[in-house]
């Protein structure tokens, strides 16, 4: 939870999300990819856990990816999964909805296109991001994995 991981060339980045959102940012040509496990939309000035909040996780993820490509300009793409409403007694715009909205807004401001999105619903998701291809595999309990 609230973690950020990056990789290059091969391997997988994996996480579980319920109301949290897995934000994958990648460049297939350079075989670079990273994922943040965002729990909440806004840090409100808190800096202790950058991966926890959308507005600190995305800049930190881009910083770590930038370090992997030595600051050379890279055209990034994004994929999202998560933002579920885990308990029926959560009402109104849930934390999951707010997370997705905040991430979409931030990626829009950064001109990073979202190429796939698997968000909402009432089930948790197991996410695996293939570093080399940027393919995201999303599993929900009792269903076949989906690949984006």
């Amino acid at each position, binding site marked *: 939870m609230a973690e950020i991981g990056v990789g290059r060339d091969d391997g997988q980045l994996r996480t*579980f999300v*319920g109301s949290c959102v897995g934000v994958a940012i990648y460049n297939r040509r350079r075989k670079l990819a990273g994922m943040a496990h965002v729990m909440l939309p806004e840090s409100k000035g808190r800096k202790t856990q950058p991966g*926890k909040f959308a507005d600190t996780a995305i800049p930190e993820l881009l910083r770590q990816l930038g370090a992997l490509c030595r600051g050379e300009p890279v055209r990034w793409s994004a994929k999202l999964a998560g933002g579920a409403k*885990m*308990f*029926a*007694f959560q009402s109104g715009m849930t934390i999951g909805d707010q997370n997705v909205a905040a991430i979409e807004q931030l990626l829009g401001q950064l001109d990073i296109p979202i190429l796939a999105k698997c968000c909402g619903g009432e089930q948790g998701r197991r996410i695996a991001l293939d570093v080399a291809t940027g393919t995201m595999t999303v599993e929900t*309990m009792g269903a076949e994995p989906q690949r984006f």
Partner: protein
Amino acid sequence: MPIRSLTSQTDLFRRAAEEASVALSKWLSRPTSITINQVSVLPITDAAGVLGVTDSPLVACAMQITGLFSGLLVLTSDDASGLALADMLLGREIGTSTEWTEVEQSAAVETANIIGCAYLNAMAGDPQANPNAVAEPLLPSPPWFIRDYAAAVMQGILMAQASVADDVFLTHTDFCVDDMPGKCSLLFIPEADDLG
């Protein structure tokens, strides 16, 4: 009383857990035992792992609490233990239930109700937690059943506290019932507004 000060009040939570254990024993007509694993403030990542599982299915019956404290009380189990509880309640041989139909879910929810009410009544009636027991009860909502990846369930359980703090307070009690293959666990997670 601020919740954070309750981290040193293990005996209060033990008394509540013992009451819950007695209620569970009567409900199932079997001996039960408890282990208090945690009454503490933990980094959120550690709190998410208190049940020791992430990608396995976790069954949870969650109750929202209002009154003296607000927050969540959640009864969790793995499939085998939860289904065994259902078999005990339904008077079947353990191992008969193999999936969570409406009947098994209803048995789990009712068990959560029994354990939860006993736990909360004991806390609300304890002068250590509530000097004005009559004025401020602890009221649970009807339990809500979910079955999902353990990590995803724990995220939902911890989210309210995580939204305002990097650490979370929780209590974690395990219940073992005679003939049950594993255990079930009761988690009490007050809302951060009550952390004091």
